[in-house]
């Protein structure tokens, strides 16, 4: 062949409007999986430093003036942290629901409903996330 034209992969995300349900499910699953890993490490970082501090003076812990309690309370009083917590819940719920869907797909169960089960995961995630908002936002001042 003399010459040919390689349209490359760049167009791929350019045609996101044409992505199918299964493609979105894959993208979201990857995204949420790696978000959870990212959270896991920040979580370990916060706790491993705070726990050391918590082992301090029992009297301070009693009065809630120890480093651990004040750090956590300080974080929890921030509006942005509450919002991020709602986001974390959404990410985890979607990952779990779609993870169950993928488990079924791997077992060859209900393959013809794979798109519907993806939409169901999305809707359920939305409902659970919205339902959680009052709990997460309780008592926070902006």
């Amino acid at each position, binding site marked *: 062949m003399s010459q040919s*034209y390689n349209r490359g992969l760049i167009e791929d995300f350019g045609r996101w409007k044409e992505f199918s349900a299964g493609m979105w499910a*894959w993208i979201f699953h990857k995204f949420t999986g790696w978000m959870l890993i990212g959270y896991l490490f920040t979580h370990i970082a916060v706790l491993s430093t705070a726990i050391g501090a918590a082992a301090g003076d029992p009297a301070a812990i009693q009065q809630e003036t120890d480093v651990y309690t004040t750090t956590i309370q300080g974080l929890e009083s921030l509006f942005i942290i509450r919002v991020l917590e709602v986001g974390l819940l959404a990410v985890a719920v979607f990952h779990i629901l779609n993870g169950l869907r993928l488990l079924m797909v791997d077992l*060859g169960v209900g*393959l013809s409903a794979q798109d519907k089960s993806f939409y169901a995961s999305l809707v359920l995630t939305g409902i659970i996330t919205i339902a959680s908002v009052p709990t997460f936002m309780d008592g926070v001042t902006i």
Partner: protein
Amino acid sequence: MRGTESPQQERLKEKEQGLAQEEAVDESDLEGETVHLKVFRYDPEVEGKQEPRFDDFYVPFEKGMTVLDAVMYARDEFDSSLTFRHSCRQAVCGSDAFFVNGKQQLGCKTQISELKQPVRIEPLPHQEVVKDLVVDMDHFYDQMHAVEPYFQQEELPDGDLEEQRQSRENREKVKMSTRCIWCAACMSSCNIAAGDNEYLGPAAINKAYRFAMDEREDDEIKEHRLRIVEQEHGVWRCQTQFSCTDVCPKDIPLTEHIQELKREAVKKNLKFW
């Protein structure tokens, strides 16, 4: 009845019902109208076409007109240099898979009346474009041949000229997988194949399935076939996005077959007795 049907049959039934609805689209709306086509053009040998562009064609609509009919009209009446592959015009030869309005479809199996206008017609994505709508199929054919797409059997039946008989059940099992017409629509739709040039791809894995599930082949040959598909760029690359299954013009449940081969491969490797 639902419980007694295989997932394949269920899927087919649903698809047929969907099709029946689509056919109900009123074609008379388009009667006497012209159809607006936007066709991808590229030719490395012609100045002015070396940079890909889209050409507009306005083709008179006729009842039952397919995408292939429309581009043939455009070629015959407006621009004889418009290039695309076609042969059978009845979804048998696999020559004319195009990217029509953002989906891999056979030109000859896609009704113009079912498409939004302007109808955007491009060569298959993720394949090198040779000219206009023609893509380089070599890589796709290489992947097909990599799975040894032919019947293999050491022993011949006893009687002279006797057929290699297959049970009805076994024939049913492989029925859908035998339908592939090598059009490469599935390969073109697959995200993973786009990113991994060595991935066997849905069509080749389906072809491996067609023979691995054929009981007339010996166990050793089945094992050999599983060894081919379970390698690094084989079945495990599939991320179950179902893109291939969505576009296959022959309704082959490709993802289902890939998943079944994954399970077969696991079973083979877990088996220690």
